[in-house]
């Protein structure tokens, strides 16, 4: 499956905006990504291994936090994961 990398994290993926991985679940896909690009791990996950609060990961159009099976959700080669840090603020 393909994983889309946001601009600020591409310095850890050799400038690639999309990384292809072999995986059968969402969790495996993220593991494969961070195994290949270990520097990414600390930018995506807290020390306890949880996704950082401001990092959103979407499986196609669904937030993986709200998938009933979470990271165990099965994926196929046509699915896409997008990593999107949040955009917010205010005066």
């Amino acid at each position, binding site marked *: 499956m393909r994983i*889309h990398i*946001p*601009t*600020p994290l591409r*310095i850890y993926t050799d400038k690639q*905006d*999309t990384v292809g991985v072999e995986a059968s679940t969402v969790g495996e896909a993220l593991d494969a990504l961070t195994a290949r690009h270990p520097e990414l791990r*600390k*930018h995506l996950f807290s020390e306890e291994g949880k996704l*950082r609060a*401001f*990092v*959103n990961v*979407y499986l196609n*159009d669904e*937030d993986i936090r709200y998938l009933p099976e979470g990271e165990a959700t099965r994926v196929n080669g046509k699915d896409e994961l*997008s990593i*999107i*840090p*949040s*955009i*917010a*603020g*205010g*005066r």
Partner: protein
Amino acid sequence: MLKLTEQIYNAIRRHGEETYPHECCGVLLGRSAQDVNEVEDAVRAGNTRTDAAHNRYNIAPQELIGIQRQARERGLDIIGFYHSHPDHPAQWSETDFAEAHWLGCSYVITSVQNGVAQDTNSFLLAGTSEENKAFENEPIEIAVLEAERC
């Protein structure tokens, strides 16, 4: 430095006037080079903070994914974001800083006073991680397009 055309610069400012007294927000697409974020397009986004739109903004991740896809198809990257400060200076706030996570991207803020755009400033989110990030004042260069020849 943030480089954009006069047309894009004006479009960002107009957006803030249109949504006044609420904050507007949007995404800047373009290319990043050494020390320069060059904007090719500004895409308007919806402000999901309808509970506090006068002083907060948030772009839905679903909308961002669509914008990121659109950028990819056009060979562009997301290189920054913009929002407005209704009746407030064009300076980043503690909230802006705490919620800024796109390192290397430009955060453009326009002050809108009584519905009229005033200052527009850009701040580069510098640093390499959440722990050492910092906003730096970033000069804005406005390119005036040459008039078409007859």
